[in-house]
């Protein structure tokens, strides 16, 4: 019997209206994501990768189509509700790291816990576990602007993991890193996938995309294969 997908996109369309012109960023996109998957989405600049990722990550809503998370259609949820779902089900890793520069490593990792139901007494323990997972136990009390790019991205990964989400979404996670540091980060994702985490990697780099189990190629807002 087939495993139920965690997340399915069904016939997603996303269009933007600029002036009188209609830009179709996504056209009839469907995808199933199963627990433990390592998926990459690859395509040229402007092909619609980020738009797709925002919809998968529930940061954006499609113009038409369904987003089904754990069997429920969440595409029409109100914003307050989507925030709660993002908090518990999705972990983001961004190209630009997006850490709070004034906060310490530990505080950055604890950020998603602030918005969760996790009792406060467990925050530090959970964050420390995640920092151990990304080998940053030694940098717990550093401010994020005291860290190297690779270290910052590992803090971001720890932050994405801390609420034990169903899916980790990474949009060009190596885009701001040199190739050596970049491949260390990728190794980290592979490791996490072996631990059972579901990972979606968005990139324009064909070689990088190949490390995933399933590669989806996107062109002008459509999957091609």
């Amino acid at each position, binding site marked *: 019997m087939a495993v139920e997908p965690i997340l399915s996109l069904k016939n997603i369309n996303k269009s933007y209206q600029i002036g009188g012109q209609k830009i179709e960023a996504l056209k009839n996109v469907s995808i199933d994501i199963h627990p433990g998957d390592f998926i990459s989405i690859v395509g040229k600049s402007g092909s619609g990768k980020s738009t797709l990722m925002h919809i998968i990550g529930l*940061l954006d809503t499609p113009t038409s189509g369904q987003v089904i998370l754990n069997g429920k259609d969440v595409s029409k949820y109100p914003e307050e509700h989507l925030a709660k779902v993002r908090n518990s089900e999705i972990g*983001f890793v961004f190209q630009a790291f997006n850490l709070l520069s*004034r906060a310490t490593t530990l505080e950055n990792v604890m950020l*998603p816990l602030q*918005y969760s139901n996790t009792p406060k007494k467990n925050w530090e323990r959970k964050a420390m576990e995640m920092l151990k997972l990304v080998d940053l136990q030694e940098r717990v009390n550093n401010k994020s602007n005291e860290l190297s790019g690779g270290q910052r991205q590992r803090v971001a990964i720890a932050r994405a993991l801390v609420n034990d989400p169903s899916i980790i979404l990474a949009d060009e996670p190596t885009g701001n890193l040199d190739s050596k540091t970049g491949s260390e980060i990728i190794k980290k994702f592979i490791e996490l996938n072996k631990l059972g985490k579901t990972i979606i990697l968005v990139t324009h780099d064909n070689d990088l995309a190949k490390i995933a189990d399933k590669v989806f190629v996107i062109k002008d807002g459509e999957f091609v294969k």
Partner: protein
Amino acid sequence: MIYELYLSAIRSLLSNKTRTFLTMLGIIIGVFAVITLIGVGEGIQNYVTKQFSSLGSNLLFVSPGKRNLRGDPGANFSSNKLDDKHVKLIETYSSDFVTGITPYIEIGKTLSYKNKNYYTVVNAFDEDGFSTYNLTLDSGRFFTRADITSNSRVVVLGSNILNELFSNQDPVGKNIKIGDKTFLIIGVAAEKGGSIDNRAYIPYTTAKSIFNIKNYSSIVMKALDSENVDSAMKRIEIALYRDLDKDEFTVLSQKDLLNSFSSILSTVTLGIGAIAAISLLVGGIGIMNIMLVTVTERTREIGLRKAVGATPNNIAIQFLIEATALSVLGGSIGIGLGILVAFLIRTYANFDATVPLWSVLLAFLFSACVGILFGTYPALKAAKKDPIEALRYE
């Protein structure tokens, strides 16, 4: 979570100390001014009340001219006609209601002893004046009927003059100059607290002859019964109508004076309130302005927080707390400075400026309200930011 938000608010305020300080300045100055002025006003109120109550509440005054304590000050300028005739009239026709009727003259004079000078108010009245003003002796004696009839050059000094001119030595029996005339010191009045201790007392007859004074500053007396002050006042008026028109004199009671003073003070308080409102308004606009800048600067942070699960409400509360922390901190600094200045006034100016608790609480509450009021718009703006736009923001 409120605690985390509070912490992050403090952190972001500390991260740009100069800007935070400048933003709070409006609130600081406003609250500081209000706290200090209320403290001083309260001090004045206490001082005056103490002074009045030390004189006794059944004191009555007849002053020349029409005095309307609340209105037209120009009405005071009619000429002064009060003299002995009127003292006699009151004695004859009101003696069953009042006692201790004394003419009263008030003149500013420099007292000098050896090479020391002291400018003060010299009061002149008759031998009854001492009991009318509830004065008692520390040493020596008061002047008597005999001193009055013989225009004696004798003086009773208030206790503060001892400090100023005699280094606290008993001066009874010594000579002192009032203006350029020499007087014999016959007594020292016991301390009463307040400016009354700075005064010197001489027989009114002496004042008239030596300082060439024709009319009395007022006629002072005591109502026999403090319950009957109003009927006593009526009686005095009727007595004086035999010689004077109704706009040539005014009968006042201690209570009238106190009331008129209170009404002046409450007008001043209202003025202070208006200044406070304006400065808090300006301070609030400053906070709103900076919060709008902050929200724009931290667009990316807002996007990130939303991405990891912050609801619009969470974001709004975060920025509201920051605005409120800013205004409450400013208010607290203003309160602290106000209390400090009141303390300095108390210690160095020998004036009892006290900051009442209600003004501290009110100032605190007001600054919190300013933060909430002017922080709401920027907070809502932050809450409405689209996370995708916010994350893309450079």
